[in-house]
């Protein structure tokens, strides 16, 4: 069995977000890049499945320019066997899914994080399954290999759902898929130097959306402390200032 884990290269969650070009593009100056946290958990689960036996190879794939390679190297250091980078800047979800579809055909299981922590699009995994004509399940919080099928757990309102599904499968995973992401060991980092990172040319495709404008959220208002015995003042504030009552 071959597993492909989709890796999105996103700004570190502590990044101070700024925009340039009259708020039309993200300012990436000085930004630290990390593996999208959901993808990192997906990779961790892929490693667990491989360690349990029955998985021959884990590949990681990313759509992006050379600057995204440290993120792929980290995935290799964690334990992926090889990496694919589609050499083109990622545009919208359709464009990314279209590029990935070219390199994802030969895998039995594709793990995609439910969203990327930068644009929170929630779209690539589903689009990719459609393009490849693979089965697909979203909001997956548990997956195991059961002979030629997969057993999949989904969190649903008020409970969970257990599914059995045949491959090839795109599993769109959320938190819970693995406990915590693995930290690469120094020996893993050394070994990652020698693992293949294949750069493939992009196919001709056009994005279906364009970014018009960004806006930062309004600054947080000052916090008002109300004495615990003074419920009346709290109600007055909620009513007259916050206008939520």
């Amino acid at each position, binding site marked *: 069995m071959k597993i492909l884990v989709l890796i999105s290269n996103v700004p570190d969650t*502590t990044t101070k977000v700024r925009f340039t070009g009259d708020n039309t593009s993200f300012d990436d100056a000085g930004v630290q890049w990390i593996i999208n946290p959901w993808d990192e958990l997906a990779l961790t689960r892929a490693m667990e499945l491989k360690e349990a036996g029955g998985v021959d190879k884990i590949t990681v794939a990313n759509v992006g320019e050379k600057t995204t*390679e*440290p993120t792929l*190297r*980290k995935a290799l*250091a964690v334990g992926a066997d090889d990496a694919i980078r589609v050499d083109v800047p990622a545009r919208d979800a359709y464009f990314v899914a279209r590029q990935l579809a070219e390199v994802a055909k030969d895998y039995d299981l594709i793990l995609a994080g439910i969203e990327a922590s930068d644009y929170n699009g929630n779209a690539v995994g589903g689009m990719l399954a459609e393009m490849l004509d693979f089965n697909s399940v979203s909001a997956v919080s548990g997956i195991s290999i059961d002979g030629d099928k997969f057993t999949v757990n989904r969190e649903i309102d008020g409970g969970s759902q257990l599914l059995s599904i045949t491959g090839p499968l795109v599993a769109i995973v959320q938190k819970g898929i693995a406990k*915590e992401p693995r*930290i*690469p*060991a*120094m*020996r*893993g*980092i*050394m070994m990652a*130097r020698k693992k293949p990172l294949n750069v493939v040319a992009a196919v001709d495709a056009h994005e279906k959306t364009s970014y018009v404008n960004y806006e930062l959220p309004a600054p947080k208002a000052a916090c008002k402390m109300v004495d615990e015995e003074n419920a009346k003042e709290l109600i007055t504030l909620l009513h007259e200032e916050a206008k939520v009552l």
Partner: protein
Amino acid sequence: MPEVQYIHPDYFQVDELLSDEHILIRDSVRDWVNRRVKPIINEACQKHEFPLHLTKELGEIGAFGPYIPEKYGGAGLDQISYGLIMQELERGDSAIRSAASVQSSLVMYPIYKYGSEEQRRKYLPLLASGEKIGAFGLTEPNHGSDPGSMQTKFEDKGDHYLLNGAKMWITNSPIADVCVVWAKDEDKIVRGLLLEKGMQGFTAPETLNKWSLRASVTGELVFDNVKVPKENILPGVKGLKGPLSCLNSARYGIAWGVIGAACDCYDTALRYSLERKQFSRPIASFQLTQKKLSEMITEISKAQLLAWRLGTLRNNDKATAAQISMAKRNNVEIALKIARDSRQILGAMGITGDFPMMRHMMNLESVITYEGTHDIHLLITGMDITGINAFA
């Protein structure tokens, strides 16, 4: 578990001097420290306990002997990588960095550099994985800055050596499985011997009641007619240059490590000063607070550049002992001052275990003394520039 808030200060874009791999190494150890050290270290210090469970994990992430070749269980990394690992560990606590320093520079390094092939194969993989813990015995009760006058000695008894003497202030001694012990032979030449836990006449009592490095175990090594097998001598070195070369490696690690402690204090103080209000303003808006913070970031930037340059020299085998002394001395001093100044910014809160300053400050009082005291390192610089030895 609350997420550890930390923004690494990099005022002079020193990160641009690092490779992508260096950054991955640093960030991996940083993640590990946030996850495994930060949540438990205050309690370990308060209880005066070494978190022994972390030794295996330090081995797993590769913090023991990272520059030792892969065939002996190391990762074969360069000196800057070693420095960055030490920096991140000491951001957690000097005790954790000390454990890794001793294992790497004072135990694995001499076995790798001066040991026989059998000794390397026997000890290095187990030390790298953290299955065995090492210690280093040079300092004695009556001989600290003057190790050449050591009294620990051994006699050749034909089929074994007979070792007598005592070592003091030995990190890890009570828990060590293997100790590199420096002692004089019958011709008064300093040699290295490998002692194993359980050898008859060899004991390692703990030194208690420390106000510093409380999350590290310190003790003595006492040798009372210990029979040491002849194959346990390090064949590759004679004289004080053996232990001193180990100290060069450890001091280099300290020059990096203490930057971690300094950054932790600075980052905490900067964040606190922006949140804490007095007279209706953040205390960061007062000139005296800004003076402290500005001096801290200036000194951190200088220390980072010094450490990076020293690492580059070491990668090319060009760093001198005197350069290492200067970097160790300078960086420890500024880290200690930053711990004190940042503690002041936090006011009374700074003395509690909820913040790292007092812990780092007390740890650094050891770090400024061990591996060559602050004063001795200055005299090394003095001797280097004047050619005159002012030690004795």
